[in-house]
């Protein structure tokens, strides 16, 4: 499901399946994108932040056009205990690799991988990032 902001429109509530993972996409070229994500985070139930939320920062290939402060993004990831991924959508290779990563995470969050839970995977990602 793609949406531009949260909360989701209520008219489709009855049609929506269970939500296993939320990926917040932040365009590094647009401050407005970060603000939008911060505003939408307030509408997410706390239980999602146990490994079912991830931040995806796009547009990182063009260093000249960065409008968003990286520190702000790191802080966001720490505050919400969620991993931060980076990608450049315009490069096909990176795009495909990121999609595969997200798909893997989704499989874990949906419980399709036996022995690995969303929470344990989330802590795994965070502790490796802290190194």
């Amino acid at each position, binding site marked *: 499901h793609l949406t*531009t902001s949260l909360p989701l*429109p209520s008219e489709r509530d009855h049609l929506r399946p269970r939500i296993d993972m939320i990926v917040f996409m932040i365009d590094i070229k647009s401050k407005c994108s970060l603000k939008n994500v911060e505003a939408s985070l307030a509408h997410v139930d706390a239980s999602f932040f146990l490994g079912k939320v991830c931040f995806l920062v796009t547009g990182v290939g063009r260093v000249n056009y960065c409008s968003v402060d990286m520190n702000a993004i790191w802080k966001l990831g720490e505050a919400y205990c969620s991993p931060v991924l980076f990608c450049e959508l315009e490069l096909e290779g990176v795009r495909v690799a990121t999609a595969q990563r997200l798909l893997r995470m989704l499989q874990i969050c949906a419980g399709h991988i036996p022995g690995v839970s969303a929470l344990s995977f989330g802590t795994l990602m965070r502790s490796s990032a802290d190194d």
Partner: protein
Amino acid sequence: MDETVAEYIRRTVLKIPRDEIKMILQKWGFLSEAQLETINFHQIKDNISQDVVQLCEENSADIKQAAVLDIIYNNIYPNKRIWSVYQMNKTGEETEFFDLTDFKKKFKRLLRSALKNVTINFREYEDNAIWIRIAWGTPYTKPNQYKTSYVVYHSQTPYVFISASVLRSNLPLLCQALVVASNYQDIREMELRSHSLNSLKDIVFKRYSQNFQTYCPRPLTERNVAPETVDLRIIQENRNEKERIQRLNREVFGDGPQPKIEFAQYKLETMFKSDPKMDVLDKKEPFRCLVKFSSPHLLESLKSLAPAGMADAPLSPLLTCIPQKARNYFKIREKKGFLPGSFVSP
């Protein structure tokens, strides 16, 4: 042939992209087809221009022919200059028959009586446009052919498009000459400027696709569904919102391409409104501020703001009124019930 003329022709030819040189020389018509055949248009431009000057030498070109070549160049590449729009008006309903010879005579006479050293050339085009090229001099120096002003006058309309050059001091004289020659009473500068002459014409002649208010209680189902492959596994949660934005955008901007302007400038002379406790200029005196929007194609980028999620739809009428009001330089003063109509035309 005068050396300055030769140099001027050489430099004009150098400005033209190599693939277009032959076509423009043919339009010029000063060199015969036989002469043009002798030029190798595949060599480097430096050599082409030398060849052209050589042939002009044989034909004894003077400044008049050189000026015509310059007009042709500027007519084909008008976007290299900035054009301003002026509107003439007169009281009384009589639409007099426009006499071209009379216009030219009066124009030249007025300019020459005020300033002895000017080069004036005219060229008429099929769309009723009269192109006037003026090279300015001073009472003591010959006209500088590199400091030229251009005027495009559509005789069936009260509009004049002027690309003045650095010498803006000659502008009042130029305007005076235009008014007298065309039998109008006065002329005023519209606050409309752009590099794209055709877009300026589109705006003042209302040739762009305008939005018409249509009463549509239910939005029409999209006739042009995006041709991209629709993956049924992707569900757009905000489809209604997206459609609303598209509809509003279409209402405001219309369906066709927008006229091309590069700037919009807003000069604010409004009161700064702040928390009274902060005591920062609160309603004491106007807060002078200049807001300038620039883009290679401003109106198209404004049109794509809301669909791209960068701005809320509908956009501020200050931005969307640009083609209708035919201006892109605004002065905004404080007024009760703040409306775009509160602008003061300078």
